[in-house]
């Protein structure tokens, strides 16, 4: 690899870089902290003539997604970026995009939802739209943010399902790291030209988009969308294996870190997975068998892969960077538990709701979670749900 391909980039810069190389037909966006930079940098690429993209500066995120839907239905490759309240404002249109099976890619920088107003990281925004019919891919660092964006466009267009790629607000979006990017030409040939089968600007084959579906058709169309999400897992794996060939970096639906012989495991998504790896190395040095399961893809939920990966683990902690406000566990924990139940795996599963509104998560806190798990194996009762790091 040429030396110039190794760069110092923040997560936002890495995502903008991927978008430059993808060179979409349309980017429609509205600024919001901490995602603003992605589209701001990209607007610079447009102004400098580095891309052929039509940049549409809209008046709201609802309009941003609407413009992307229009562009995508017309036959263009459309992308956008947002965060938090912006994603919330887009929510209505996210359902329209997935229902119309439009392969839009959205970079979402995870940020807490109001109220109280807060600009820092948690996963509440992405979790809020987990039922919107979008594939969700979480990134651990700037490198993954770049790699995931390049793969996302191919995944979306193959599955005809839109994709959200997330980073963690400020932690990844504004943290500068060493990343390796691919040559422009390599990305260009990997993503290829976008060739939709049906699109509005094809005057040789007229279509209607968004017709009314009454009780006699709506159910069948929802069933199709549900199936598309089910089969997306295999497409994500296919794209990952193609990406490995051009980048040397391998991706799956999930990542295991020192998990196979572990007694205790943490399940964590996003940047915390990186912190957990350091905690694991520290504890392994003391002879403790601990590991990590990092779901990279949250939608579709890799149910059987997760239960397979956890089947020999004696006690599990799920780290939820958002709360479901449902009187029970957070969203990730509930789904992990459901996966275990289906394989009749009954073992202690503890939920740790942490990091809300950007509350720092420290190494010693993660190491303490493993201590809790060893206690749980011994049958010492632990709280099923812990609000980690909150002042009592």
């Amino acid at each position, binding site marked *: 690899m040429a030396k110039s391909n190794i760069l110092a980039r923040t997560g936002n810069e890495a995502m903008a870089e991927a978008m430059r190389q993808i060179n979409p037909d349309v980017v429609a966006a509205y600024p919001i902290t901490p995602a603003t930079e992605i589209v701001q940098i990209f607007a610079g690429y447009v102004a400098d003539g580095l891309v052929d993209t039509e940049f549409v500066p809209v008046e709201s995120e609802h309009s941003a997604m609407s413009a992307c839907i229009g562009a995508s239905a017309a036959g263009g490759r459309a992308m956008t970026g947002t965060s938090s309240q912006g994603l919330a404002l887009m929510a209505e249109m996210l359902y329209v995009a997935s229902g119309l099976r439009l392969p839009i890619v959205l970079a979402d920088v995870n940020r807490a939802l109001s109220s109280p107003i807060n600009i820092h990281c948690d996963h509440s925004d992405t979790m809020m739209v987990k039922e919107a019919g979008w594939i969700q891919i979480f990134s651990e660092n700037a490198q993954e943010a770049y790699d995931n964006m390049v793969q996302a466009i191919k995944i979306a267009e193959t599955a005809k399902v839109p994709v959200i790629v997330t980073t963690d607000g400020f932690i990844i979006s504004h943290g500068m790291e060493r990343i390796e990017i691919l040559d422009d030409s390599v990305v260009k040939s990997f993503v290829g030209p976008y060739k939709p089968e049906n699109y509005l600007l094809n005057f040789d084959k007229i*279509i*209607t988009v968004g017709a009314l579906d009454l009780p*006699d*058709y709506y159910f069948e169309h929802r069933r*199709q969308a549900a199936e598309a999400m089910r089969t997306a897992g295999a497409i994500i794996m296919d794209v990952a294996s193609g990406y490995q060939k051009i980048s040397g970096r391998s991706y799956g639906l999930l990542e295991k870190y020192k998990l196979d012989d572990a007694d205790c495991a943490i399940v964590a998504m996003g940047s915390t997975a990186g912190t957990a790896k350091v905690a694991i190395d520290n504890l392994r040095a003391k002879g403790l068998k601990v590991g990590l399961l990092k779901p990279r893809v949250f939608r579709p939920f890799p149910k059987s892969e997760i239960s397979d990966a956890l089947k020999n683990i004696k006690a599990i902690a799920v780290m939820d960077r958002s709360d479901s406000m449902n009187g029970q566990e957070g969203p990730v924990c509930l789904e992990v538990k459901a996966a275990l139940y289906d394989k009749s795996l009954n073992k202690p599963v503890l939920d740790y709701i942490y990091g809300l509104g950007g509350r720092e998560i420290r190494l010693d806190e993660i190491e303490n979670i493993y201590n809790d798990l060893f206690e749980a194996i011994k049958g010492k009762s632990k709280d099923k749900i812990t609000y980690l790091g909150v002042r009592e």
Partner: protein
Amino acid sequence: MATEKQSKPGWKKLQEGDLIIGGGTAKEFKTGDWRSKRPVFIPEKCINCLTCWVYCPDSAVIVKDGKVVGFDYEHCKGCGICEHECPVKGKAIKMISEKEAKANEKK
């Protein structure tokens, strides 16, 4: 009920994303059956200004060789805009109730 379900395509056969392929498909979708009033054309009063044809929101005024010849009752919704807009004194279009129209048909 079951047979009605069977007569429509299952989810595997439907066009993905609720797309409808081909133009002009609204023609096949008959929307006139819930009309409570219908326009009746009075040709001797008509000056063929085509105002009704321009205003009809459902393209239900039938024109042949530049002249109004009647209405497409499979798509006319009975809104009465054509009658309202007709500039002729005494109107060349008269809205009557469907009940009255059905009774006339039986005569």
